[in-house]
């Protein structure tokens, strides 16, 4: 079974930043076909942007424009592209995250994968913002990258 997911830009940054040889379950799940990504211009721009920051590149000289483009092309092989991502959900305290939720909604994503606690807490049943989100996309689960494999195993 293939599930659909939105990986936020820090997930991709982690792929680049953590030590060589580290197994990244979020990459393996793409390669095995268990996860298909939802992608939009906003999210791709954010990923390109973070991988292009001077302070990041100062630590990683191999992170050139050409390599970033190759990384994004490789990433897009595992993604479905959504040209139109209407604004449907708004997180008032963190509006810059709205595009992730909107992409998850339009893409029918099963998972939003993120390290950010401000987003993860929306997965709690009692969270009012989470309740608003689930009214728009009842099946969306917000999970940390290291929990994604287990979440998939737990699915019926």
């Amino acid at each position, binding site marked *: 079974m293939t599930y659909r997911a939105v990986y936020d830009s820090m997930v991709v940054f982690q792929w680049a930043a953590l030590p*060589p040889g580290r197994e990244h379950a979020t990459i393996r799940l793409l*390669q095995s076909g268990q996860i298909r990504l939802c992608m939009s211009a906003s999210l791709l721009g954010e990923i390109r942007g*973070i991988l292009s*920051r001077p*302070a990041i590149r100062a630590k*990683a000289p*191999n*992170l050139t424009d050409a390599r970033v483009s190759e990384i994004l092309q490789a990433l897009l092989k595992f993604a479905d592209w959504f040209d139109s991502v209407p604004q449907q959900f708004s997180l008032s305290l963190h509006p810059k995250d709205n595009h992730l939720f909107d992409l998850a909604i339009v893409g029918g994503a099963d998972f939003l994968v993120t390290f950010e606690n401000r987003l993860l807490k929306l997965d709690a049943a009692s969270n009012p913002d989470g309740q608003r989100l689930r009214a728009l996309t009842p099946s969306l689960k917000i999970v940390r990258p290291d929990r994604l494999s287990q979440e998939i195993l737990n699915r019926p």
Partner: protein
Amino acid sequence: MTLHLVVPAEIEQRLRAKAGEAGQSVDDYVSKLLATAVTSPTLDELLDPVRRDFAAAGLNEDQLMDLGRQELEAMRKENDARGR
């Protein structure tokens, strides 16, 4: 090398349409697709030199992730200031 492939009817239909759009036979089109697939670097291959750079930079994992978060926030603020 000669391969015999069994593909679902829907994929066959799309394959024929895409080969037609590219002005190629299905055989040529599939052969080029396969060549691209096996010669393109994987994500891990592309990321490996970058990972080595970060490892050599001397920051631990928490510091690297903090750097990423700070830069993401800075980028978002800059984009706001530009009205994007």
